[in-house]
Protein backbone atom coordinates (compact mmCIF):
# COMPACT_ATOMS: atom_id res chain seq x y z
CA UNK A 1 0.00 0.00 0.00
CA UNK A 2 1.50 3.31 -1.06
CA UNK A 3 1.50 6.21 1.38
CA UNK A 4 0.16 9.67 0.55
CA UNK A 5 3.74 10.97 0.56
CA UNK A 6 4.74 8.41 -2.07
CA UNK A 7 1.77 9.38 -4.25
CA UNK A 8 2.55 13.11 -3.90
CA UNK A 9 6.21 12.54 -4.65
CA UNK A 10 5.46 10.51 -7.76
CA UNK A 11 3.09 13.19 -9.01
CA UNK A 12 5.74 15.87 -8.42
CA UNK A 13 8.33 13.73 -10.12
CA UNK A 14 6.20 13.29 -13.20
CA UNK A 15 5.36 16.98 -13.46
CA UNK A 16 8.83 18.35 -12.74
CA UNK A 17 11.39 15.72 -13.81
CA UNK A 18 12.22 17.27 -17.19
CA UNK A 19 12.69 20.76 -15.72
CA UNK A 20 14.91 19.44 -12.94
CA UNK A 21 16.97 17.33 -15.32
CA UNK A 22 17.53 20.25 -17.69
CA UNK A 23 18.60 22.38 -14.74
CA UNK A 24 21.14 19.68 -13.85
CA UNK A 25 22.55 19.67 -17.36
CA UNK A 26 22.74 23.45 -17.21
CA UNK A 27 24.91 23.20 -14.11
CA UNK A 28 27.03 20.16 -14.89
CA UNK A 29 27.48 19.24 -18.53
CA UNK A 30 28.76 15.76 -17.82
CA UNK A 31 25.74 13.42 -18.05
CA UNK A 32 26.91 11.12 -15.29
CA UNK A 33 27.34 14.04 -12.90
CA UNK A 34 24.00 15.45 -14.06
CA UNK A 35 22.38 12.12 -13.18
CA UNK A 36 23.97 12.24 -9.70
CA UNK A 37 22.74 15.79 -9.19
CA UNK A 38 19.29 14.82 -10.48
CA UNK A 39 19.06 12.04 -7.90
CA UNK A 40 20.40 14.26 -5.13
CA UNK A 41 17.68 16.83 -5.85
CA UNK A 42 14.98 14.14 -5.90
CA UNK A 43 16.25 12.80 -2.57
CA UNK A 44 16.09 16.28 -1.01
CA UNK A 45 12.59 16.84 -2.34
CA UNK A 46 11.53 13.50 -0.84
CA UNK A 47 13.16 14.26 2.51
CA UNK A 48 11.59 17.67 2.87
CA UNK A 49 8.23 17.04 1.24
CA UNK A 50 6.55 16.83 4.65
CA UNK A 51 7.81 20.30 5.54
CA UNK A 52 6.12 21.96 2.54
CA UNK A 53 3.33 24.08 3.99
CA UNK A 54 1.97 25.71 0.87
CA UNK A 55 3.39 29.16 1.67
CA UNK A 56 4.71 29.35 -1.88
CA UNK A 57 4.00 27.63 -5.19
CA UNK A 58 5.17 24.03 -5.13
CA UNK A 59 7.20 24.65 -8.31
CA UNK A 60 8.99 27.61 -6.65
CA UNK A 61 9.74 25.40 -3.65
CA UNK A 62 11.11 22.67 -5.93
CA UNK A 63 13.19 25.19 -7.89
CA UNK A 64 14.67 26.54 -4.68
CA UNK A 65 15.65 23.10 -3.49
CA UNK A 66 16.96 22.23 -6.93
CA UNK A 67 19.04 25.37 -7.36
CA UNK A 68 20.38 25.34 -3.83
CA UNK A 69 21.38 21.70 -4.25
CA UNK A 70 22.91 22.43 -7.65
CA UNK A 71 24.95 25.31 -6.24
CA UNK A 72 26.35 23.23 -3.39
CA UNK A 73 26.88 20.29 -5.74
CA UNK A 74 28.79 22.29 -8.34
CA UNK A 75 30.90 23.98 -5.65
CA UNK A 76 31.66 20.58 -4.17
CA UNK A 77 32.49 19.11 -7.56
CA UNK A 78 34.85 21.97 -8.29
CA UNK A 79 36.66 21.42 -5.03
CA UNK A 80 36.29 17.64 -5.07
CA UNK A 81 34.76 17.69 -1.63
CA UNK A 82 32.66 15.09 0.08
CA UNK A 83 29.13 14.12 -0.79
CA UNK A 84 26.69 14.79 2.01
CA UNK A 85 23.72 13.03 0.51
CA UNK A 86 23.79 9.30 0.26
CA UNK A 87 22.80 8.45 -3.28
CA UNK A 88 21.25 5.01 -3.64
CA UNK A 89 23.17 2.61 -5.87
CA UNK A 90 22.01 0.43 -8.73
CA UNK A 91 19.25 2.68 -9.95
CA UNK A 92 18.19 1.91 -13.45
CA UNK A 93 18.78 5.06 -15.47
CA UNK A 94 17.95 5.04 -19.14
CA UNK A 95 18.09 7.74 -21.76
CA UNK A 96 14.61 9.03 -22.60
CA UNK A 97 14.78 8.77 -26.36
CA UNK A 98 17.28 8.87 -29.16
CA UNK A 99 17.72 12.50 -30.00
CA UNK A 100 18.96 13.13 -33.51
CA UNK A 101 22.68 13.75 -33.74
CA UNK A 102 22.09 17.27 -34.99
CA UNK A 103 19.74 18.09 -32.11
CA UNK A 104 22.19 16.56 -29.66
CA UNK A 105 25.01 18.71 -31.08
CA UNK A 106 22.93 21.86 -30.79
CA UNK A 107 21.99 20.97 -27.23
CA UNK A 108 25.65 20.45 -26.39
CA UNK A 109 26.40 23.89 -27.85
CA UNK A 110 23.70 25.36 -25.65
CA UNK A 111 25.01 23.61 -22.51
CA UNK A 112 28.50 24.80 -23.37
CA UNK A 113 27.25 28.38 -23.70
CA UNK A 114 25.40 28.14 -20.36
CA UNK A 115 28.37 26.57 -18.60
CA UNK A 116 30.48 29.58 -19.61
CA UNK A 117 28.18 31.87 -17.61
CA UNK A 118 28.86 32.57 -13.94
CA UNK A 119 26.67 30.70 -11.42
CA UNK A 120 24.10 33.47 -10.91
CA UNK A 121 23.70 34.02 -14.65
CA UNK A 122 23.41 30.26 -15.10
CA UNK A 123 20.52 30.16 -12.63
CA UNK A 124 18.79 33.05 -14.37
CA UNK A 125 19.43 31.55 -17.82
CA UNK A 126 17.97 28.15 -16.95
CA UNK A 127 14.93 29.70 -15.25
CA UNK A 128 14.44 31.94 -18.23
CA UNK A 129 14.73 29.06 -20.68
CA UNK A 130 11.99 27.28 -18.73
CA UNK A 131 9.80 30.32 -19.38
CA UNK A 132 9.60 31.65 -15.81
CA UNK A 133 8.48 35.20 -15.15
CA UNK A 134 10.97 37.79 -13.83
CA UNK A 135 9.09 37.81 -10.52
CA UNK A 136 9.67 34.06 -10.04
CA UNK A 137 13.33 34.39 -11.05
CA UNK A 138 13.74 37.22 -8.53
CA UNK A 139 12.03 35.17 -5.79
CA UNK A 140 14.26 32.17 -6.38
CA UNK A 141 17.56 33.97 -6.83
CA UNK A 142 17.04 36.65 -4.17
CA UNK A 143 17.82 39.60 -6.45
CA UNK A 144 15.48 42.43 -7.44
CA UNK A 145 13.19 42.17 -10.46
CA UNK A 146 14.90 45.17 -12.05
CA UNK A 147 18.28 43.52 -11.74
CA UNK A 148 16.80 40.33 -13.20
CA UNK A 149 15.60 42.34 -16.20
CA UNK A 150 19.08 43.77 -16.74
CA UNK A 151 20.66 40.34 -16.47
CA UNK A 152 18.04 38.75 -18.74
CA UNK A 153 18.77 41.13 -21.61
CA UNK A 154 22.47 40.43 -21.33
CA UNK A 155 21.98 36.66 -21.10
CA UNK A 156 19.56 36.54 -24.03
CA UNK A 157 21.98 38.48 -26.22
CA UNK A 158 24.91 36.35 -25.13
CA UNK A 159 23.20 32.99 -25.70
CA UNK A 160 21.78 34.05 -29.07
CA UNK A 161 25.22 35.25 -30.12
CA UNK A 162 26.96 32.08 -28.97
CA UNK A 163 24.49 29.85 -30.78
CA UNK A 164 24.57 31.94 -33.96
CA UNK A 165 28.20 33.01 -34.30
CA UNK A 166 27.98 33.72 -38.05
CA UNK A 167 25.08 36.13 -37.82
CA UNK A 168 26.86 38.03 -35.07
CA UNK A 169 30.13 38.36 -36.89
CA UNK A 170 32.21 36.14 -34.59
Amino acid at each position, binding site marked *: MRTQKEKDFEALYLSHKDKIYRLCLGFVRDKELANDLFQEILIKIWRHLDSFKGESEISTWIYRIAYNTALTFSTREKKQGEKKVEIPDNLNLTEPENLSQELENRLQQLYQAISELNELDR*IIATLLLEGNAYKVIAEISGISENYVAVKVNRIKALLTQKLNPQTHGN
Partner: protein
Amino acid sequence: METNFNDIQQLWKSQKAVNFDISGLIQQMKATEKKQKTEWIIGIACVPITISILVYALPLKDSPLGIITLLIISFGMSWVIWLNSKSLLGQVENAERYNQRDYLQEQIQKLKLRGKIIQKHMITYGVILALAINLGYLAVLAPLSLQVRIGAHVGATLFIAVIMWFTLRKKSKKFETESRPMIRQLEKLLEELKN
Protein backbone atom coordinates in the same frame (compact mmCIF):
# COMPACT_ATOMS: atom_id res chain seq x y z
CA MET B 1 19.93 27.22 -36.22
CA GLU B 2 18.44 29.21 -33.34
CA THR B 3 17.92 32.69 -34.68
CA ASN B 4 16.08 34.08 -31.69
CA PHE B 5 15.61 33.34 -28.02
CA ASN B 6 12.32 31.51 -28.54
CA ASP B 7 14.11 28.99 -30.74
CA ILE B 8 16.73 28.54 -28.03
CA GLN B 9 13.94 27.95 -25.53
CA GLN B 10 12.42 25.28 -27.78
CA LEU B 11 15.81 23.63 -28.14
CA TRP B 12 16.29 23.70 -24.34
CA LYS B 13 12.90 22.11 -23.73
CA SER B 14 13.56 19.33 -26.22
CA GLN B 15 15.78 17.67 -23.60
CA LYS B 16 13.83 15.19 -21.52
CA ALA B 17 14.79 13.59 -18.23
CA VAL B 18 16.44 10.21 -17.96
CA ASN B 19 13.93 7.53 -17.03
CA PHE B 20 14.45 5.49 -13.97
CA ASP B 21 12.58 3.33 -11.60
CA ILE B 22 11.01 5.90 -9.28
CA SER B 23 9.45 3.22 -7.05
CA GLY B 24 12.91 1.71 -6.59
CA LEU B 25 14.26 5.14 -5.67
CA ILE B 26 11.47 5.66 -3.11
CA GLN B 27 12.13 2.27 -1.52
CA GLN B 28 15.87 2.99 -1.28
CA MET B 29 15.22 6.44 0.16
CA LYS B 30 12.89 4.97 2.77
CA ALA B 31 15.57 2.45 3.73
CA THR B 32 18.21 5.23 3.94
CA GLU B 33 15.87 7.35 6.08
CA LYS B 34 15.35 4.46 8.46
CA LYS B 35 19.10 3.88 8.71
CA GLN B 36 19.80 7.58 9.34
CA LYS B 37 17.05 7.77 11.95
CA THR B 38 18.60 4.82 13.79
CA GLU B 39 22.06 6.44 13.62
CA TRP B 40 20.65 9.69 15.00
CA ILE B 41 18.89 7.89 17.86
CA ILE B 42 22.13 6.04 18.69
CA GLY B 43 23.99 9.39 18.66
CA ILE B 44 21.45 10.96 21.01
CA ALA B 45 21.45 7.88 23.26
CA CYS B 46 25.25 8.10 23.67
CA VAL B 47 24.98 10.74 26.43
CA PRO B 48 22.61 8.84 28.80
CA ILE B 49 24.39 5.54 28.05
CA THR B 50 27.82 7.00 28.90
CA ILE B 51 26.47 8.63 32.04
CA SER B 52 24.73 5.42 33.11
CA ILE B 53 27.97 3.45 32.63
CA LEU B 54 29.88 6.04 34.66
CA VAL B 55 27.24 6.00 37.41
CA TYR B 56 27.18 2.22 37.71
CA ALA B 57 30.84 1.42 36.97
CA LEU B 58 32.42 4.11 39.13
CA PRO B 59 31.44 5.35 42.58
CA LEU B 60 30.82 8.85 41.24
CA LYS B 61 27.23 9.37 42.31
CA ASP B 62 28.13 9.05 46.00
CA SER B 63 30.16 12.27 46.26
CA PRO B 64 29.47 15.90 45.33
CA LEU B 65 32.64 15.98 43.18
CA GLY B 66 31.49 12.85 41.36
CA ILE B 67 28.08 14.38 40.68
CA ILE B 68 29.75 17.56 39.34
CA THR B 69 31.91 15.32 37.09
CA LEU B 70 28.82 13.59 35.71
CA LEU B 71 27.08 16.92 35.12
CA ILE B 72 30.12 18.38 33.34
CA ILE B 73 30.51 15.31 31.09
CA SER B 74 26.78 15.33 30.25
CA PHE B 75 26.95 19.04 29.43
CA GLY B 76 30.11 18.63 27.32
CA MET B 77 28.72 15.74 25.27
CA SER B 78 25.33 17.40 24.71
CA TRP B 79 27.07 20.64 23.70
CA VAL B 80 29.24 18.87 21.10
CA ILE B 81 26.26 16.95 19.66
CA TRP B 82 24.29 20.21 19.44
CA LEU B 83 27.18 22.07 17.77
CA ASN B 84 27.69 19.30 15.23
CA SER B 85 24.00 19.15 14.38
CA LYS B 86 24.05 22.92 13.78
CA SER B 87 26.98 22.65 11.38
CA LEU B 88 25.34 20.02 9.15
CA LEU B 89 24.96 21.20 5.58
CA GLY B 90 22.10 20.79 3.19
CA GLN B 91 19.18 21.72 5.42
CA VAL B 92 16.36 22.92 3.21
CA GLU B 93 13.43 22.82 5.62
CA ASN B 94 12.78 26.49 5.04
CA ALA B 95 13.01 26.26 1.27
CA GLU B 96 9.62 27.96 0.98
CA ARG B 97 11.12 31.13 2.41
CA TYR B 98 14.73 30.66 1.38
CA ASN B 99 16.01 32.29 -1.73
CA GLN B 100 19.49 31.77 -3.08
CA ARG B 101 21.00 34.57 -1.01
CA ASP B 102 19.58 33.28 2.31
CA TYR B 103 20.65 29.77 1.44
CA LEU B 104 24.21 30.79 0.59
CA GLN B 105 24.47 32.87 3.77
CA GLU B 106 23.34 29.92 5.86
CA GLN B 107 25.69 27.48 4.15
CA ILE B 108 28.65 29.83 4.67
CA GLN B 109 27.67 30.31 8.30
CA LYS B 110 27.48 26.54 8.81
CA LEU B 111 30.81 25.90 7.15
CA LYS B 112 32.42 28.62 9.25
CA LEU B 113 30.91 27.04 12.35
CA ARG B 114 32.67 23.81 11.38
CA GLY B 115 35.97 25.71 11.47
CA LYS B 116 35.08 27.37 14.76
CA ILE B 117 34.22 23.98 16.27
CA ILE B 118 37.66 22.67 15.33
CA GLN B 119 39.69 25.76 16.22
CA LYS B 120 37.85 26.81 19.36
CA HIS B 121 35.01 24.67 20.64
CA MET B 122 36.80 21.31 20.48
CA ILE B 123 39.65 22.75 22.57
CA THR B 124 37.09 24.00 25.10
CA TYR B 125 35.52 20.53 25.05
CA GLY B 126 38.93 18.96 25.70
CA VAL B 127 39.49 21.29 28.68
CA ILE B 128 35.99 20.51 30.03
CA LEU B 129 36.61 16.78 29.63
CA ALA B 130 40.01 16.97 31.35
CA LEU B 131 38.48 19.02 34.16
CA ALA B 132 35.62 16.55 34.60
CA ILE B 133 37.91 13.52 34.61
CA ASN B 134 40.29 15.14 37.10
CA LEU B 135 37.38 16.04 39.38
CA GLY B 136 36.12 12.47 39.08
CA TYR B 137 39.57 11.15 39.95
CA LEU B 138 39.66 13.38 43.04
CA ALA B 139 36.56 11.56 44.24
CA VAL B 140 37.35 8.02 43.06
CA LEU B 141 41.07 7.89 43.87
CA ALA B 142 40.81 9.48 47.33
CA PRO B 143 41.79 6.29 49.19
CA LEU B 144 45.04 5.84 47.17
CA SER B 145 48.49 7.29 47.87
CA LEU B 146 49.35 10.82 46.77
CA GLN B 147 51.92 9.61 44.21
CA VAL B 148 49.41 7.30 42.49
CA ARG B 149 46.82 10.04 42.48
CA ILE B 150 49.18 12.63 40.94
CA GLY B 151 50.28 10.05 38.38
CA ALA B 152 46.67 9.30 37.45
CA HIS B 153 45.79 13.02 37.12
CA VAL B 154 48.82 13.79 34.96
CA GLY B 155 48.36 10.64 32.90
CA ALA B 156 44.68 11.28 32.20
CA THR B 157 45.30 14.94 31.34
CA LEU B 158 48.16 14.08 28.99
CA PHE B 159 46.13 11.31 27.40
CA ILE B 160 43.25 13.71 26.64
CA ALA B 161 45.69 16.38 25.39
CA VAL B 162 47.41 13.96 22.99
CA ILE B 163 44.13 12.51 21.67
CA MET B 164 42.72 16.02 21.18
CA TRP B 165 45.89 17.20 19.44
CA PHE B 166 45.83 14.37 16.90
CA THR B 167 42.07 14.65 16.34
CA LEU B 168 42.19 18.41 15.87
CA ARG B 169 45.19 18.24 13.54
CA LYS B 170 43.37 15.73 11.32
CA LYS B 171 40.10 17.68 11.38
CA SER B 172 41.87 20.97 10.74
CA LYS B 173 43.64 19.56 7.69
CA LYS B 174 40.34 18.24 6.33
CA PHE B 175 38.67 21.61 6.95
CA GLU B 176 41.42 23.51 5.13
CA THR B 177 41.33 21.23 2.08
CA GLU B 178 37.57 20.74 1.81
CA SER B 179 35.53 23.35 3.64
CA ARG B 180 37.77 26.43 3.27
CA PRO B 181 37.70 26.36 -0.58
CA MET B 182 33.93 25.81 -0.44
CA ILE B 183 33.53 28.86 1.81
CA ARG B 184 35.55 30.97 -0.65
CA GLN B 185 33.49 29.72 -3.60
CA LEU B 186 30.16 30.32 -1.83
CA GLU B 187 31.29 33.78 -0.70
CA LYS B 188 32.14 34.59 -4.29
CA LEU B 189 28.63 33.51 -5.34
CA LEU B 190 27.07 35.56 -2.57
CA GLU B 191 29.07 38.59 -3.64
CA GLU B 192 27.74 38.15 -7.19
CA LEU B 193 24.19 38.10 -5.83
CA LYS B 194 24.78 41.25 -3.80
CA ASN B 195 26.31 43.21 -6.69
